[in-house]
């Protein structure tokens, strides 16, 4: 076995361990030199990213492969037959999410170099930043329910401190406080659901639970609590109100990772619904005449209703908002709505007996999962642009901005790319995923896709307003001295913009090579159970 094979074998643990170790070493390296600390943090993130890429290569090499890593033994099951060992498992969905997290982490640290340069306490900033990245990877890679909760908490605590990093601004502290209250409440309910499941099945392993779950009354309660808790963490309306506060007040580099953390919560919801509860979702809850009312249908309709509300309220609030970052945050809420619209549509159809319905469900899932990637990139780029504008002008109010395209040409181009992408304009990446969502939801109910398309047009109107207010118009005398942002910030925005354009021009490559394996992973429950625990 060569070193590469060794690295791949231990990669799930290393992906979390390296940023975790890096986080605790950062304050020590800060003592030597600030520049060395920055280089060290970038090195840690690049090293983690290289391991993610190695693992991705390994996962994608074999169709349906699941890489399991058991801590403290070779099998998750002990001699007594108890599945008590913690394990990480990486399938198509995990690695898809890990790739998104990798892009955000690399871009985030590059951006931070210049963006945070003027701040003090950067040893703490980078420590928390790496902790947040480690927590995000942990949430994505773990195959253990309690472990998921632990990483969720690590991420929440690090995020809270980073949201409130600009402590000289009272509103940042207020946003941090709100975030920790909401996060702790959500996490507490998730822990409650985990306890219910553990009490019934003596297991915390997701695959073991998936194989044993019977959908009793208690399982029903656990599902409700899990879905609600994760929905709040994902920022679904009407539990979204923390999101504009947190996204709006955190430094832009932190907001970028927060987008990833929110999506990790959405991943958690996907994993719980489709994997842990997957087989029992077609349980008949009641019968009215000849019609069976199945759990997946009820849950799907509920999620679709929340999704429409999320898209609609997100867009309307964004249209009204005049603070640059809060406006993007509301747009991000709307974008989350598109993902859960696809998930809800998939839930209503994928468990059906009809072949066409199953196809529609799989297509909706494909669109939803593809949109997770696109949303992270598009919204992430817009937040970085908002950060760049703040860096150059020290202004966040759109009412006080104007004519910046004359001073900040590259930033303007990046904003335009982000604007077109997030609004689902061709040929950007957002269009490809939204097109799949529109078509699949149209098969479920045409009204859904009509509302989704109309809201996407409103989203374009939102960003046209930003583009006009901040970048167009006559040159403002107060911005005469404004210059383009430093190169590291431009590089970070440029990386995301290039990926957006690549995905936009070649969506089929991305869908076939990384999205489809994620969809297969989530829909093939038996493969997951048999690969992870060998079919207990």
């Amino acid at each position, binding site marked *: 076995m060569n070193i590469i094979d060794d690295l791949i074998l231990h990669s799930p643990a290393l992906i979390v361990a390296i940023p975790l170790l890096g986080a605790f070493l950062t304050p020590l390296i800060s003592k030597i030199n600030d520049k060395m600390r920055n280089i060290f943090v970038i090195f840690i993130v690049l090293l983690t990213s290289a391991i993610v890429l190695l693992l991705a290569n390994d996962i994608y090499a074999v169709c349906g492969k699941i890489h399991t890593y058991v801590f403290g033994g070779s099998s998750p099951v002990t001699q007594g037959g108890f599945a008590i060992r913690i394990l990480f498992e990486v399938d198509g969905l995990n690695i898809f999410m890990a790739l998104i997290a990798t892009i955000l982490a690399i871009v985030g640290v590059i951006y931070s170099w210049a963006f945070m340069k003027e701040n003090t306490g950067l040893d703490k900033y980078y420590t928390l930043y790496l902790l947040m990245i480690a927590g995000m990877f942990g949430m994505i890679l773990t195959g253990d329910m309690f472990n998921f909760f632990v990483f969720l908490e690590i991420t929440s605590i690090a995020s809270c401190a980073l949201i409130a990093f600009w402590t000289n601004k009272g509103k940042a502290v207020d946003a941090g406080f709100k975030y920790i209250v*909401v996060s702790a409440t959500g996490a507490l309910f998730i822990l409650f659901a985990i306890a219910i499941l553990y009490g019934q099945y003596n297991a915390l392993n997701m695959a073991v639970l998936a194989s044993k779950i019977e959908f009793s009354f208690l399982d029903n309660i656990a599902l409700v609590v899990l879905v*609600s808790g994760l929905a709040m963490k994902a920022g679904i309306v009407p539990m979204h109100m923390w999101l504009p506060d947190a996204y709006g007040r955190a430094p832009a580099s932190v907001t970028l990772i927060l987008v990833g953390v929110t999506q990790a919560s959405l991943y958690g919801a996907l994993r719980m619904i489709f994997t842990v509860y997957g087989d029992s979702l077609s349980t008949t809850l009641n019968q009215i005449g000849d019609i069976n009312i199945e759990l997946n249908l009820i849950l799907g309709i509920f999620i679709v209703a929340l999704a429409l509300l999320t898209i609609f309220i997100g867009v309307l609030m964004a249209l009204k908002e005049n603070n640059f970052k809060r406006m993007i945050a509301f747009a991000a809420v709307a974008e989350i709505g598109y993902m859960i619209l696809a998930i809800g549509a998939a839930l209503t159809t994928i468990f059906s007996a009809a072949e066409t319905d199953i196809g529609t469900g799989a297509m909706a899932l494909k669109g939803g999962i593809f949109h997770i990637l696109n949303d992270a990139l598009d919204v992430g780029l817009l937040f970085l642009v908002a950060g760049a504008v703040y860096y150059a002008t020290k202004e966040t*109010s759109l009412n006080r901005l104007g004519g910046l395209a004359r001073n900040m040409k590259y930033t303007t181009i990046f904003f335009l790319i982000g604007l077109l992408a997030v609004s689902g304009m061709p040929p950007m990446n957002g269009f490809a995923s939204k097109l799949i969502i529109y078509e699949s939801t149209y098969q479920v109910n045409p009204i859904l896709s009509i509302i989704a398309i109309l809201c996407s047009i409103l989203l374009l109107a939102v960003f046209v307003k930003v583009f006009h207010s901040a970048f167009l118009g006559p040159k403002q005398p107060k911005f005469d001295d404004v210059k383009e942002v430093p190169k590291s910030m431009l590089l970070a925005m440029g990386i995301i913009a290039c990926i957006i354009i690549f995905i936009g021009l070649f969506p089929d490559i991305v869908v076939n090579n990384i999205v489809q394996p994620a969809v297969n992973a989530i829909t093939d429950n038996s493969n997951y159970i048999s690969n992870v625990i060998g079919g207990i």
Partner: protein
Amino acid sequence: MIEIQDFLRTLGTDSGFWNPLVWGVIIIIAFLIAYIIRGMGKTEYKEKTEQTKVFLSGNPELEKEEMHVKASNVYWGFMESFKWLYSGLDKMHTGNVSDYILWFVIILGVLFLILGVI
């Protein structure tokens, strides 16, 4: 392994398809046609003459810096028309963290009712 021809493949969406490269070619052709039509426009147009001066129905022209439409004025008509909707949304977004948790409890309760009662 990704082959060169993979880059030219069309994304199938079950009931339709999407190929950005074909779209790109069509857009370029459309731009060319637009450019040709533009070229056939008025030839007597001259820059920096009376023709290009701003005409505000006899009102004095403001300083350029003052002519920028502020963000809060951009969709003023839309906001006015949907005042009733926005007043409801504003009441919902109180900024009070207790209300955030209250919404969570409401959703939890609704989901309990839906899954429990049905």
